[in-house]
């Protein structure tokens, strides 16, 4: 696989999403009203599963104790992220942080919710080089230099990965995960 510039991979998890996902999304979006704060619980389990998998196959340079997952900004589909459990028994603690670069100290995982592209870039830039796994919820094209980006489709949830960002992150991601990302097969 040739790695040059921005290499984006996505994974599609077929059949993981309850049937009326698209409709529910519309309905719930209408119900929640304006802004990015609207929550969409029908995607939450699949999101939690993918985030758990990514954490599962990522190795930090200093592997110790429980992990801290910081949810930055309004996370519309991250409602189940506190339920993430790792296979080796380590716990993942969820912490809500503000969408500002100064707030992400002590985070091993940064789950960035629905924020402005500029804010997203700032958060990702702040995390880079500090051993932080970055996952963007609302950047399907994965242009923000986040390592992983969620991709939501009407009946499926998948993810993309930015190999360039992963290579520079200082973290080790199991290459088998590459196969699962969209376009990685």
């Amino acid at each position, binding site marked *: 696989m040739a790695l040059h510039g921005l290499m984006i991979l996505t*994974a*599609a*998890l*077929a*059949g*993981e999403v309850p049937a009326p996902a698209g409709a529910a999304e519309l309905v719930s979006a209408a119900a929640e009203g304006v802004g990015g704060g609207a929550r969409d619980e029908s995607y939450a389990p699949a999101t939690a*599963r*993918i985030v*758990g*998998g990514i954490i*599962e*196959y990522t190795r930090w340079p200093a592997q110790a104790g429980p992990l801290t997952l910081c949810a930055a900004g309004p996370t519309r589909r991250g409602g189940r992220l506190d339920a993430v459990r*790792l*296979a*080796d*028994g380590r716990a993942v603690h969820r912490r809500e942080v503000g969408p500002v670069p100064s707030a992400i100290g002590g985070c091993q995982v940064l789950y960035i919710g629905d924020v402005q592209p500029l804010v997203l870039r700032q958060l990702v830039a702040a995390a880079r080089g500090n051993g932080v796994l970055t996952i963007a919820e609302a950047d399907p094209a994965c242009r923000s230099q986040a390592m992983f980006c969620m991709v939501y489709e009407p009946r499926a949830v998948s993810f993309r990965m930015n190999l360039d960002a992963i290579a520079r992150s200082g973290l080790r991601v*199991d290459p*088998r*995960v590459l*196969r*699962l990302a969209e376009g990685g*097969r």
Partner: protein
Amino acid sequence: MAAPRQSLPTLRQLLAGVHMRLILFTVTLATASLLLSGMIVIRNYASRNLQLTAHTVAYTVEPAVVFGDRAAVLEAIVSVAAVGGIDRVEVREPGGPVLAAWNHPHGDLHSRFEDLANRLLWASPAFHPVVRGGRVLAEVRVYGNSEGVLRYALSGAIIALSCLGLTVIATRILARRLQRDVIEPLDHVAAIAHAVRTDRAFEKRIPSSGIAEIDRFGQDFNALLAELQGWHAGLTSENAELARRATHDSLTGLGNRALFEQALGEAICASVRSGVAFAVLYLDIDDFKAINDRHGHDSGDAALIAVAERLRSSIRQVDSAFRLGGDEFAVVLAPFHNRAHVEGVVARIHLAMERSFRLPSGLFARSTVSLGVAVYPDDGISPSDLLRRADAEMYQMKRHARYEGETGHGADA
């Protein structure tokens, strides 16, 4: 030699049969053991391959199982399992439903037989769990495919059959060569034995052959033939001697009465054909009884031998003399054209008798003979007529001689 019975096999058939059985046994044994051991080895390798495949599949599908991506699970299986020798791979949750399964795309050659072989060879699948952090996420089951083993068995069987064909041909050639080397010398012996039996060809000998046993046999046979030849020659000469004794007088060596009658008959036949006359002489020794009585039987025998010897020397090669018994002799003279010839012979006989002979006692004696002549066909045409005539003439002459003998002729001691 009697024609060989149909039920008896020839040596060549025996050899070919033995060879064939041996070859069949050997090739079958070799093929069976090779095929069996080959199949066992291949199965062991295939079994290890299944284990390895199960292991690899478990490793490869692990993230896909963690992510819950069934399509990715299937793809991972396909990427590993599509190498052959594998019939089915399935990944299922522990004790739960199948997450993904892959089946070998069977070609045209697939059959129920292959299914059966699969079940026989791979009664239980290779198994490997998918473990993450000590927790079993899923189970991988890999079912083997008997295709490789079957293909090996098939090709092995084909090769074995070809080898069998080749060896059968080679056996034929070998048997033919053996026949040439072994049976031809034996046939030679048989032919000579046959010739000896039917043609009494005792002088034939078996030539030396290239095989030690047959050569020894031939030498013994030749020695036996030589002995037979000796015996045969002895028997032949003894038979000839016996035959001669049956027709010849042992004392004088002249033909006996039987031979005389035969010779007379033949002479008559010859004369009838040729029309030329012949004569029979009939003679006996004068006063033979007196010689016997006075000087003993030894002297009588000496007189008989002397008379016979003189008689033989007085006639030609074509004439023949016989002793009919006692002191009676006969001569069959060969055909003549002139009666004077007969007179000449008679005169020669009388002249020959003038010579004295030696008695066993050492004394010398002289014997005279009385002689009658009968000419065929003038004096008779049957043997008995001729004999009677000659006999009568002889007695007439004897009476005449006795009359003259009173004046000085006779045997003197």
